C-alpha cells in the first residue's frame, strides 16, 4: 500500500473517457438551459465535475482493500442515513431523496450505490466455491434489499432498481445454478401483483403508458412521445447546439437532467448518439478489462459491480427515451445534471483506477 503520488497509477484512458462524457454533458446542460430559469446550471455542474475529478484522483490512491475493510461501517451508516431521510428528509418535488449539507443538497442514494458495490464485493471476496448457495442468495438479498426498500420508499424506484442490478451482477459473477434462476424468476412473477399494489399511482400510470404508448398523448406517455419526437427530429446531424426546439420550448421535461440524452440527440443527431454511446461502451469495456486483470476476487467484483450499475443506468435511461423501457427516474451517469450522481460515478472510477493499478502487485 502506498500513499505516494504516482502518475503511473492513474488510468488516463478511463479518466479521459469519463471526463469526455461529462464535458459533453456540461455542453448539453449549457445548451438546454439557455434562456430558461435554470440558466447557469452548467457552471455548477463544472464545479462538481472538478471536485469529482479531484476526489477520484484521491480515491485512486487509496487502497481498495482499506475501503473494503471499512465497508460494514459504511453500510450501517448508509442504512441509518436512509432511515433518517425517510423520517425527516428534505423533500424536493415531493420525494425525500435529499440530504442538506451546508448550502448543498445531496442525494444520498447515489453514494449508497457505491457502498452496495463495496458490500457485494466484500461478501464475495470471502466466498469460495463455484456457485452461490441459497444462503448466499438470502443474505445478499437482504444486503441489497434493505437499502433498496428504503430508497424505493423515498420514493425513488429507479435508484432502488440499480441496487438490485448490482446484486444481480454480483450473483451472476459468483455463479448461480439454473434451478436457482428458475426459482428466483418464479418468486419474482408471484410477487408481481404485490408489487403492483405497492406501486404509487403515477408509477402504475408509467407502466401502463409503456404498454399503451399511443393512448392519451397528453398524459403519462406524453414524455416518451416528446422525447421520441426530439430524438427523431434530430436526424443524422442534429439541429445544432442551442437549436433543439423540443427541449428549448419545454416539450421535453427535465431536459437537463434525466432526459438530457433526448435533448442531446435532438441537437447532435445520430452522429452524436453514436459518439456518446461508443464512449460509454469504451468506458464499460475498460472497466471489465480491469476486472479481468484484477489481482483478486474483491477487485474483480468491485469493477464488475461498477460496470454493471453504470451499464444498467445508461441502457435504461437511453432506452426509456425511445420507449424501450417504462419511464423511471434514472439519470444518465456522467451526463445528467446533478452533483451527487457525478460524484458517485467519479468516486467509482477512482476505485476502479486503484484496482487497475494493483494489477502488477504480487
Amino acid at each position, binding site marked *: 500500500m502506498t500513499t505516494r503520488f504516482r502518475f503511473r497509477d492513474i488510468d488516463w484512458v478511463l479518466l479521459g473517457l469519463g471526463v469526455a462524457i461529462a464535458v459533453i454533458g456540461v455542453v448539453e446542460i449549457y445548451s438546454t438551459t439557455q434562456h430558461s430559469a435554470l440558466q447557469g446550471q452548467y457552471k455548477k455542474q463544472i464545479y462538481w465535475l472538478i471536485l469529482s475529478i479531484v476526489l477520484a484522483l484521491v480515491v485512486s490512491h487509496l487502497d481498495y*482493500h482499506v475501503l*473494503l*475493510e471499512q465497508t*460494514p461501517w459504511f453500510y450501517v451508516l448508509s442504512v441509518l442515513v436512509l432511515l433518517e431521510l425517510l423520517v425527516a428528509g428534505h423533500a424536493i418535488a415531493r420525494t425525500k431523496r435529499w440530504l442538506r449539507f451546508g448550502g448543498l443538497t445531496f442525494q444520498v442514494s447515489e453514494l449508497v450505490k457505491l457502498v452496495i458495490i463495496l458490500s457485494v464485493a*466484500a461478501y464475495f*471476496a*470471502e466466498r*469460495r466455491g463455484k456457485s452461490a448457495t441459497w444462503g448466499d442468495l438470502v443474505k445478499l438479498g437482504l444486503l441489497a434489499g434493505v437499502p433498496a426498500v428504503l430508497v424505493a420508499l423515498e420514493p425513488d424506484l429507479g435508484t432502488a432498481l440499480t441496487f438490485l442490478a448490482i446484486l444481480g*451482477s454480483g450473483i*451472476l*459473477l459468483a*455463479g448461480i445454478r439454473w434451478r436457482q434462476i428458475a426459482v428466483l424468476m418464479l418468486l419474482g412473477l408471484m410477487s408481481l401483483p404485490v408489487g403492483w399494489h405497492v406501486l404509487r399511482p403515477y408509477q402504475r400510470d408509467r407502466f401502463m403508458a409503456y404498454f399503451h404508448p399511443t393512448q*392519451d*398523448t*397528453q*398524459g403519462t406517455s406524453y414524455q416518451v412521445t*416528446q422525447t*421520441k*419526437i*426530439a*430524438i*427523431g*427530429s*434530430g*436526424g*443524422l446531424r442534429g439541429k445544432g447546439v442551442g437549436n433543439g*426546439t*423540443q427541449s428549448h*420550448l*419545454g*416539450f421535453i421535461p427535465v431536459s437537463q437532467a434525466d432526459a438530457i440524452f433526448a435533448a442531446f*440527440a435532438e441537437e447532435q*443527431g*445520430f452522429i452524436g*448518439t*453514436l459518439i456518446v*454511446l461508443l464512449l*460509454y*461502451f469504451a468506458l*464499460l*469495456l475498460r472497466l*471489465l478489462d480491469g*476486472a*479481468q486483470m*484484477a*489481482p*483478486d*476476487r*474483491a477487485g*474483480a467484483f468491485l469493477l*464488475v459491480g461498477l*460496470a*454493471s450499475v453504470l*451499464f444498467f443506468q445508461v*441502457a435504461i435511461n*437511453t*432506452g426509456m427515451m*425511445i420507449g*424501450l423501457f417504462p419511464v423511471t427516474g434514472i439519470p444518465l451517469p456522467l451526463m445528467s445534471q446533478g452533483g451527487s450522481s457525478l460524484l458517485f460515478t467519479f468516486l467509482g472510477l477512482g476505485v476502479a483506477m486503484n484496482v487497475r493499478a494493483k494489477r502488477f502487485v*504480487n
Partner: protein
Amino acid sequence: MEVRFPEHERLPAWKIAFFQYAIALTFLGLLVAYWRIQIGQHRSYLEQAERNRVRNLPVIAPRGRILDREGRVLADNFPAFSVLLMRESASILAPERMQGIARSLGLVPVELQHLMEHTARLPRFQPVVLKQSATLDDIAFVESHRLEYPELALIQVQQRLYPKRDVAAAALGYVGEVSEDMIAKPGSPYRPGDVVGKFGIEREYDKVLSGQDGMRRVIVNSRGEEVGSLTTINAMAGNDLRLTIDLDLQMAAEAALGDQPGAIVALDPRTGEVLAMVSHPSFDPNDFAKRIDRGEWEKLTDDPMKPMMNKAIQAQLAPGSVFKIVTATAALETGTIQPDFTLHCAGAVDIYGHTYHDHKVHGSVDLHRAIILSCDVYFYTLGKLLGIEKIDYFAKRLGLGHRTGIDLPGEAAGLIPSPEWVQKAFKRKWWAGETMSVAIGQGAVVVTPLQLARMIGAVASGGVFCRPHLVFKDQLLALGVDPPDDSGRNFPLGETTLEELTRGMWGVVNEDGGTGVGARCPGIDIAGKTGTAQVVSVDLMKSAQNASYNNNAWFVGYAPTTKPEIVVAALVLRGEHSTVAVPVAREVIKAYFDKKAARKPPPGPTPAQSPMLSKANSARLPTPAVDTENRQ
C-alpha cells in the same frame, strides 16, 4: 471485522466475457433503435416537432359593413374572442378530457362530441372553433389552464353587430356559423366555425361582405404560450356594402307598422331601388351573431307570426282588390271595355247560375267609380268578359306569379291561377266560376307585398318595370360582381289605360267615397289602391270555400300621381279592413316627402349627395316608354 483476501483467485475469463458480450449486444441494439428513429423515421418526427412548435392561428377577416344609402351603419363589427381547439396537438380527445373542456366552457358535451366527429376528416392544421363570443370567464379559463389544456387557444374575431337591432332585420338578414351541409359541399371554402351570411343581404352578398381570412404561424412553447412569430398572412377585410335603403324612411316605416304584424315595401319605381323594407314581427339579428341556443331558436321558428320570414318578399297572400288594377289593365288594353262601360251594382250578380256578392250596393258604376269604390260586381263582370287566359297573361306581364328578381334569397314567386295550373296541380278542368274570384284578387291568386308595390309602381309609371334591388348596380360593378340582367321587363301601357288607371287610383285617395281617403296628406299628391283580402292559402283552396277567415289589409300607395317617385305597399296581417293599411303607407310616403322638403329648402336641381348616388341616378333605366306629360 477482518476481511481476508485470497490471492490468485482470478475469475474465469468467460464470466467477464459474458458481461462484455451482454454489454456489446445491448449497445448494438440501442444503436439500431436510435438509427431507426433518427434516420428511418426522421421525416415523420421532424414534422411532429414542427407541429409541436408551430401553431397556425387563423386571422379572422372583418366582414364588410352594411350601410344605408347615406352611409349610416346598419351592420357593424366589434372585437370578440373565440375559443379554438388546436387539433394538431390533440386529434383525439379522451372522453373525460372532452367532458372537462365542455364543462368549463359551458358547452353541451354531446354537441362537442358531434363537432369533433364532424371535424375529424379535416386537415389537422385547421383549428376548430369550440366557442364563439367567449365570455370573460371562458377567456380566464383558457388563459389559466394552458398547461392542462394546451390544445385550447384564443383568437380575436370580429363579431357582427347590428346597431339598429331589429330595424330592417328581415332585409339585412343575419350571420351564423356555417352549416355542416355547406362545409360538406365539394370545393367548399368553408371551415367549421366560419361565420357566413345566413339570410337576407348577409347571405345574398356573402361573397362581397366576407373577407379573406389570414393566417399567423407562431412559435409556441409546451405551455401554449407564443414565444415568436414566423409568418403572417394578413386578413383582407370584406367590402362595405351600401344599400338603397334610407334609414330615415325605414325607421318611419317601422314606426308606421308598429306592433301590427305585416310588411311594408317602399320602392322608387323609376329605378327599382328599395327604400324601405319592413317585416313584423321582427327579430334581433344580434342574437344570431353568437351561437344561438336551441330554446331561443325554437321560439323564433315556432312563432305562428313567423318572425324569421321576410314577409315583404316571402308572404304569399291574396291581393284582394289591389288586383283589380290588373283586371282593369287587361280589360282596357284588350279593348274588352271602354272606360265609360257602366253597369248597375245591386250588391250581387248572377253569373253562370251562381250569385257573386259584393261588400255593398254601389248602384251605377263606370270603370272610374268601380276602382275608387272597389266595386266587386263590376270586376266580376269584367272577369266574365275577359276570361281567365287574358287575366293570367296580363297579371304575369305586370310582374305577378313570378319572382321580381330582387337581390334577396328566398323570394317567393306567388301564383296566378290558370287552366294549365289547375290541370297540373289538381288534374281537373278550370271552372268558369273561378275566373270571377281571380278578377277581384281572390281565389288562388297569391302575391307578395314586393310584387304588388312593383306592379302598382310600374302601372303608375306607364309600364316601366324595374328589378327591385337593395344594392346599387354601380357598386356591384365596382366590386367586380355582375349585376343581374334588367332588360326586357317593360310592358308599355296604352295612353288611355294609363290615364284611366292613374285617375282611378288618384280617386281612391282623393275623391269622396274612395276606399283610400285615409291616405290623403296635405301637400302630397298621393294615389293608390286598397285591398281587403280573405286569408286563404293555396293549400286550403279546395276546402276553404265558405269558411270564415280573418282578412288581410292592403294598401299600395304612390306619389306623386304622375311620374311617381315612391310606391309603398303596406300589408297588415289580420287587419280586417284595408283602412288599417292605408295610414301605414301614408306615413311612409309622408316621411319621404318631409325629408325631401327638409333637404332642399329652395326648389331646384339637387346637387349630387354622394358619388354613389349620382352614379346610381345616371344608371337608371331610360325614360318611361310612355311619357305621361305628352298626353296632357
